[in-house]
């Protein structure tokens, strides 16, 4: 059966055609990417999401930076910063940081596992479409990579003032960003949506 897709940016209708290995289909009018060929999309994303979850736990359980000033050492985890902001009566900001660096990435990882793990064994979890839609909508709010840039800027900013010691969690952060980006890239959402359709 022939299937069609409308460009999400200019609304032009295209016929869906099979793509060569790692091929990209772009809109003939505005150039937006319509869909890509992604080999083993679901398996890869599942593996990366699992790795991501482990790294996420590591990144949040250990301090990622420590500041040495004289005899004093100050360590920080992601949560301490959020707690400090909260104590300084910056509740809204604490919430924004919490949502974008902890809640959104975590919900995204858990949601992906919820969707992909059963699909891997040819089962479909309850509320599959709803959960997947939620996971997709979180995408712009998960800002781990921006946070990483924030770490780099802070390190440079403080370098003159005190000695900065990177903690174990900083390496988990680095790895987590790579893994999250890879998971996003390797996922072909159309494949999951088609699974939703197959359900009775």
């Amino acid at each position: 059966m022939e299937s069609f897709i409308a460009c999400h940016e200019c609304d032009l209708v295209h016929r869906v055609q099979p793509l060569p290995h790692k091929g990209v289909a772009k809109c003939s009018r505005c150039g937006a990417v319509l869909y890509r060929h992604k080999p083993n999309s679901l398996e890869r994303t599942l593996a990366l999401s699992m790795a991501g979850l482990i790294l996420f736990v590591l990144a949040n359980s250990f301090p990622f930076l420590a500041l040495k000033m004289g005899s004093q050492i100050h360590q920080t985890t992601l949560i301490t910063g959020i707690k400090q902001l909260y104590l300084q009566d910056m509740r809204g900001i604490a919430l924004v940081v919490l949502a974008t660096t902890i809640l959104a990435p975590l919900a995204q990882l858990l949601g992906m596992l919820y969707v992909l793990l059963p699909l891997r064994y040819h089962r479909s979890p309850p509320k599959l479409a709803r959960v997947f839609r939620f996971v997709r909508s979180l995408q712009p709010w998960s800002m781990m990579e921006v946070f990483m840039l924030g770490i780099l800027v802070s390190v440079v900013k403080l370098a003159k003032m005190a000695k900065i010691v990177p903690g174990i969690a900083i390496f988990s952060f680095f790895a987590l960003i790579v893994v999250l980006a890879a998971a996003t890239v390797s996922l072909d959402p159309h494949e999951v949506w088609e699974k939703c359709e197959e359900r009775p």
Partner: protein
Amino acid sequence: MKQLFLTARESSQISCHSCQLLCRIRAPQKEGILICPRCGSTMHQRKPNSVKRTWALVLAACIFYIPANLFPVTIVTSLGKAQADTIMSGVIYFIGSGMWPIALVIFVASILVPILKLIILTFLLISVQRKSTWRPKDRTRLYRITEVVGRWSMVDIYVVTILVALVNLGSLATIKAGPGVPFFAAVVVITMFAAMSFDPRLIWDAKETLDE
């Protein structure tokens, strides 16, 4: 120029925002709500009230942009002396101490990106309202850039969070988040919502009506 292809709207079809399923609409839809049969989200031919919503959010962000830049974002207390820094004075401090790359990162992410985003969205809104047919492909590209780049403005918020957590050395030195921070965060979040509520298909709709 006569086009060979049709848009979803011209062929009375509707494309789902979240799963991109194409559905045929039987009668011209007036009031009732359409639900996507595949993913269950509400379907719209175009994002609802896109222009109005985006205008409202753009204006709100413009207003917040002012206190975000006038109020300090960090207050450093070192040995009893307090020093308040705005975003711009932070950038100037970095330039003064020769840290050009960091100055550039902060300047681009915190000052340039939000203002460019607001300018581009305003421009797109006006062009759509005037039903302009000027270079739709480039205007779509502009939109794509605003959508991707906006999140990076959050970097300053994270820097403040990290500084506040790390520098808390009792009487020696403390860093506190300044009153500018909430305004700045509001600018970033609101402009992200503004970019999301704008529908780039409106750019192409003007061309369609012209063809008829």
